């Protein structure tokens, strides 16, 4: 029960203000169609740079929780999911809104998000320390393979083509090699003075997530029709609570599936919501009503996508492998505050991490209260024009990038990377493996070079043996191979359909 020792740290005026602000802004950003939780968290990271690590992480955690839940507002009101995690919510949520029950649907959404969210944080609290202990057994070669595994899993899950996913991951790794060699200190691939400092993690995050979004909003400005806003309708809070808690089966299926998917590296809220929706439908007496405005569908999808949030941090905090794309961005947030995932996290940064985890519990309560409050006034959020959003995001992205190191070069790198990513995404490439490559690149290279030195001494120069022997190494290599093989298989299967 170590987590209870740090609860008091969350209840300072400053931290509560950060939580309230992060949740409020997070719900609004989540509700804006097209602004993903990943981009919102990435955009916020530079502003946490000057904060104490625990304050910065509290703000990022609140934002992560709130954006996932907030995405349901636009899914219900205009049938445009605010985030991929809310796709399943739109199926019944918008049908309810069309029947004049959008307020009721929004109530169900925030109450079930709250239940799922609390369940997920409990899983995070009890599963993280034992897994962190496991990481004690990891040496240089294991850490190298962990970094490669993280990129491989994200690359194969997040992309429609395994080749493109892996190429994106390798591109990220290549970007990470620009600048100084981490072990030997020699400058590499510095073709212009702007690249002297290499590609900063946060610069990469903002460029790869925010810039393509800005260009997308501009490109589709005229083709994007204003979605018809459904009437909010009326519903009492008590009846909504009674309904949600009366759907114990949907809540438990959603929360459990969401948590399991959260722990699986790279899977994310979209898969959690859809799988849970599908499974709840199979076990429901009202399965025929699914897709026609069945509230149980919302309960299942929303409890799942929010219960995914906590568990997605388990592999992140213990093994540096993010459980979701947004968790990958949070990894960048941890690293810029000098916090390195692994067993040491509960020794050297015990207070910071437990305060952060504890704050996620309060973030769920705030998400419930603020979400229910905004349910009554959510219509105006949908009315923010895309051109205002595009320019607002871009100016914040430029300022956020510049503020990291007062460097104009960083701004140029951010804009260049983002523009390349925009065109690459047209060809089916994904930003998430690139980001993970930039983040995990130095970890992979550092451990590769150290492992090579140790292995060379231990195996008479045959260092490859050092990387390919040992139970953990073999297991990690096998998972990499399985992940790629499964990716190729599912690509082929979906092409044949």
């Amino acid at each position: 029960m170590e987590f209870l020792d740090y609860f008091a740290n969350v209840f300072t005026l400053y931290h509560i203000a950060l939580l309230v602000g992060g949740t409020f802004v997070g719900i609004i950003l989540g509700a804006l169609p097209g602004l993903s939780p990943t981009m919102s968290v990435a955009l916020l990271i530079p502003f946490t740079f000057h904060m104490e690590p625990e304050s910065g992480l509290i703000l990022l955690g609140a934002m992560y929780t709130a954006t996932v839940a907030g995405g349901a507002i636009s899914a219900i009101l205009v049938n445009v999911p605010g985030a991929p995690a809310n796709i399943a919510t739109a199926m019944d949520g918008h049908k309810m809104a069309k029947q004049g029950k959008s307020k009721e649907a929004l109530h169900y959404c925030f109450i079930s998000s709250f239940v799922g969210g609390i369940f997920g944080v409990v899983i995070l609290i009890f599963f993280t320390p034992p897994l962190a202990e496991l990481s004690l057994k990891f040496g240089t070669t294991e850490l190298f393979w962990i970094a490669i595994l993280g990129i491989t899993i994200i690359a194969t899950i997040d992309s429609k083509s395994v080749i493109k996913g892996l190429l994106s991951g390798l591109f990220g790794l290549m970007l990470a090699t620009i600048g100084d060699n981490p072990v030997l200190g020699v400058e590499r691939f510095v073709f212009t003075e702007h690249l002297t400092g290499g590609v900063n993690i946060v610069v990469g995050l903002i460029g790869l997530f925010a810039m393509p979004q800005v260009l997308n909003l501009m490109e589709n400005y005229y083709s994007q029709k204003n979605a018809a806003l459904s009437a909010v309708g009326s519903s009492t809070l008590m009846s909504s609570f009674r309904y949600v808690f009366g759907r114990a089966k949907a809540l438990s299926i959603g929360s459990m599936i969401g948590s399991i998917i959260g722990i699986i590296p790279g899977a994310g809220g979209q898969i959690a919501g859809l799988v849970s929706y599908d499974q709840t439908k199979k076990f429901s007496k009202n399965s025929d009503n699914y897709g026609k405005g069945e509230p149980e569908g919302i309960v299942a999808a929303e409890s799942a996508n929010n219960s995914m949030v906590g568990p997605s941090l388990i592999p992140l905090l213990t093994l540096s492998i993010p459980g979701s794309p947004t968790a990958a961005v949070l990894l960048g947030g941890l690293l810029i505050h000098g916090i390195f995932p692994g067993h040491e996290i509960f020794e050297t940064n015990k207070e910071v991490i437990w305060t952060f985890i504890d704050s996620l519990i309060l973030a769920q309560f705030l998400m419930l209260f603020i979400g229910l409050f905004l349910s009554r006034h959510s219509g105006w959020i949908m009315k923010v024009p895309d051109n205002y959003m595009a320019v607002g995001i871009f100016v914040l992205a430029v300022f956020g990038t510049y503020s990291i190191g007062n460097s104009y070069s960083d701004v140029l790198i951010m804009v260049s990377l983002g523009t390349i990513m925009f065109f690459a995404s047209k060809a089916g490439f994904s930003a998430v493996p690139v980001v993970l490559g930039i983040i995990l690149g130095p970890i992979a290279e550092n451990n590769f070079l150290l492992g090579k030195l140790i292995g060379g001494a231990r195996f008479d120069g045959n260092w490859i043996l050092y990387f390919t022997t040992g139970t953990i190494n073999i297991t990690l290599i096998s998972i990499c191979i399985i992940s790629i093989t499964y990716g190729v298989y599912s690509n082929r299967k979906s092409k044949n359909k």
Partner: protein
Amino acid sequence: MVFTQIVNLKINNMRQYLKISTLLVIVVALTLLSISFEEVINPKPWVDNEDYLFPRFISGGIAILGFLLFFEKDVLGKTTNYKDLLPGLGLLLVYILTMKYIGFYLASMILFFAVVMIYKKPEESTDFWRVCIFKLGIAALFTLALYGLFTEMLHVQPPKGMFF
């Protein structure tokens, strides 16, 4: 004339476009691979090949995957609407280039105003001056909010130019 040609650019053969891009990726990867081997290109006696070992594996991997992608079937992507994209992209680039001369706040206000004036939907009011003054007001408010948040509250310095 050139601009009209660019905005009317429609890539009908997406497959061809992707193949050309893939070839470009392979060429870049092979160039980086050769840099990692060739000390002649970067003749520094203190640079050991060991320093480039990791990037060598990665660029090799990129080249191999590039070849595989070249022969992959059904790799069609989405087309780009250059007509609506290019004016905005141009404005963003001008903003980036002028920001360090005229300052972050003034450049941001001009960018905001220019973007919301260029990207406007037909259903907006046709009274040009009314729309102009309204949007200028919003741009000024936006800049003021940025100033209040960054300079006054967070005490973070934006890029400075000749104005502020």
